[in-house]
C-alpha cells in the first residue's frame, strides 16, 4: 500500500518527465524529414532512405545530447518524494505509526522510484530506436539500446543522494536544493582541478554515460568501458540510501 502511496505522490512528476523526454526524442527522430508545405509541417522520410545509417547516428547523437540527463533529473525530482520529505509537513507521524519498519518504507520508495526512472529512460529512447529502425530499415544501433540502462545506473547515486538529503533536511524542497547544491559544487570543484591544473581525474560515477556519449559515432570504435566508474556508481547507489535509512531510523519527530 505504501508503494501505491509513493506512486500516487510521484505520478505527476513521473508523467511530466516521461512526456517531456518522449516528445523530445520523437521530435529529434522526426526532425530530419520535417519540412513545411503550404504552411504545415510534413514528415518526409526521404533523408532516412537516402542516407539511412549516418542520419540515424546523427539523430541518435542529438537525442543523447539532450536525454543524457534524464536519469539525473528523474532521480532528483522523483527522489524528493522520499519519506524524509514527510517530516516537515507532519504526515510522518501517520506514516511512522503504521506497522511497518522505517527500513521497509525507505526501500519501498526507492524501488518505486527506480521503476519510474527505468520507464522514463527506456520508453523515449526505445521508441526513438523503433522509429529509427522502421524508417531506415536498419536495426544496428547497439548503443541506442544500451543507453537508457546507463542513464539509470548513473542516476541511482543521485536518487540515493536525494533520498539522503530529504532525510537530513526533513523536506522535499530541502532534498531538491541540497542535492542540486552538492552536484553543482562537485562539478565546480572538478572543473577547478581540470582547467587550471590541467588534470583529468576519472569521473566519480558518471563514466558509463561519458563513455556512451563519446562512443556513439560511426564507425564504432568503443574505447575501454569505465568499469571503475560503474562500480563506484553501484557502490554509491547502495550506500547513499543505506545512510538515508540510518538517518531516518534515528530520526525523532
Amino acid at each position: 500500500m505504501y508503494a501505491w502511496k509513493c506512486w500516487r505522490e510521484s505520478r505527476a512528476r513521473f508523467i511530466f518527465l516521461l512526456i517531456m523526454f518522449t516528445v523530445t526524442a520523437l521530435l529529434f527522430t522526426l526532425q530530419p524529414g520535417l519540412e513545411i508545405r503550404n504552411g504545415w509541417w510534413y514528415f518526409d522520410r526521404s533523408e532516412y532512405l537516402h542516407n539511412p545509417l549516418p542520419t540515424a547516428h546523427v539523430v541518435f547523437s542529438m537525442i543523447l545530447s539532450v536525454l543524457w540527463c534524464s536519469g539525473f533529473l528523474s532521480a532528483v525530482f522523483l527522489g524528493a518524494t522520499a519519506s524524509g520529505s514527510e517530516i516537515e509537513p507532519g504526515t510522518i507521524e501517520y506514516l511512522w505509526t503504521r506497522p511497518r519498519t522505517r527500513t521497509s518504507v525507505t526501500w519501498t520508495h526507492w524501488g518505486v522510484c527506480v521503476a519510474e526512472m527505468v520507464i522514463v529512460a527506456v520508453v523515449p529512447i526505445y521508441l526513438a530506436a523503433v522509429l529509427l529502425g522502421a524508417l531506415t530499415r536498419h536495426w544496428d544501433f547497439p548503443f541506442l539500446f544500451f543507453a537508457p540502462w546507463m542513464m539509470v545506473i548513473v542516476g541511482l547515486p543521485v536518487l540515493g543522494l536525494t533520498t539522503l538529503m530529504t532525510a537530513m533536511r526533513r523536506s522535499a524542497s530541502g532534498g531538491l536544493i541540497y542535492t542540486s547544491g552538492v552536484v553543482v559544487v562537485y562539478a565546480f570543484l572538478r572543473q577547478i582541478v581540470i582547467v587550471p591544473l590541467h588534470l583529468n581525474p576519472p569521473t566519480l560515477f558518471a563514466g558509463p554515460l561519458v563513455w556512451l556519449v563519446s562512443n556513439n559515432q560511426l564507425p564504432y570504435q568503443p574505447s575501454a568501458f569505465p568499469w571503475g566508474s560503474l562500480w563506484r556508481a553501484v557502490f554509491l547507489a547502495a550506500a547513499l540510501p543505506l545512510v538515508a535509512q540510518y538517518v531516518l531510523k534515528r530520526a525523532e519527530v
Partner: protein
Amino acid sequence: MSEVAIFIEGLSKSYGAHAAVSELRLKIQPGAVYGFLGRNGAGKTTTMRMLLGLVRPTEGSARVLGLDPTKEPELVQILERVGFVPQRKQLYGWATPAELVRMNKAYFPRWSDGAAAELAKRLEIPMNMAFKKLSIGNQSKVALLLALAQGAEVLVLDEPTAGLDPVMVDEILRTLIEDHISQGRTIFVSSHHLGEVEQICDWVGILEEGRLLLESRLEEIRQDFRLVIASGESLPVAKSTDLVSATTDGRFRRYVVAREAERFAAELRGQGATILEISPLGLRELFLHLVRKEDPCTPGNAGAKAVPVSSFS
C-alpha cells in the same frame, strides 16, 4: 490481554538542558481509560510519542502490551495493536478520506470496514473530498476514524477532540464509550477538556514540567479528595501522607487532601489554625490547584499513592 497495557518506568526525555519528561512512572491496566492531563508543554505528547517509537527516551523504559517500543521488531507489533491519534492530525492532502481508509486498512489485520463506514456516517465525514479541503474539525474526525476502525487493543489519543464542535465531541465520546470502553479496550488520552476526561476516564494522571504530580482514580477524587482552607498568623507545616498539595495565599493556606480531610483539619486546628472551609473537589479545581504557576506547589502524589510532604512554604 493479560499483560499491563502500558508500563512506564523512570522514563525521561531531555532536549539539551530542558527536561521534557522526567522520571515518569505509570502503570495502566488493560481496560483502563486513563486521562493524561497537563498544561501545554507538560510532556504529555512527548510521553505518547515515546510509547510509539517517534521519540527515543533519554533514560528509563516503557512497555506497551509488554513490548519495547525502542526495538524495531517489537515496535511494529505495538503499532499493529495500538491506534494513535496524534496532536497534529496531518494526513496526505491529496487523498480523500475514502482513499485514506483503503490505504490504512492494508496495514491492519483487524481493520473493520463496517466500523469505518459506521463512523463515517456518525461523524458526518465527507468521504470523497480531498483531505486538504476538509475543515480542521473534519480532518480531526478522519484521523479518529482511522484509529478507531483499526481494531486496536490500546488507543493512544493526543487531544482527540481538538477543533471539534460540542455535538461532534459528544458523538466521539459516545463512540468511545459504546465501541471501545464497553469492550474493555485500554484508552490513554490527553486532553485539555477536563469535562470530557471526567465523562470517560476512570484514572487520571496530572503532569507538570515532565513530572507526574498526581495519579488517582477519578472516583477517589470525587469521593475522598477535599480542599481544606485554613487561616492563621503562622500556619504550621503540615505533615501527612494524605496531603496532595498546599498553596499559600497571603494569610490563607489551601490544602488538597486525598482522604480523611476531617482528621487532617483537626490536626491543623490542634496546631492553632482556623479552618475556613472543607469542600469537595472537582477534577478542574484539583487540576488548577496542582498546576497553577503563581502558587508554590508540593510535588503531589506521583507514584499512585499520596507521598509525605515534609515541608512547604
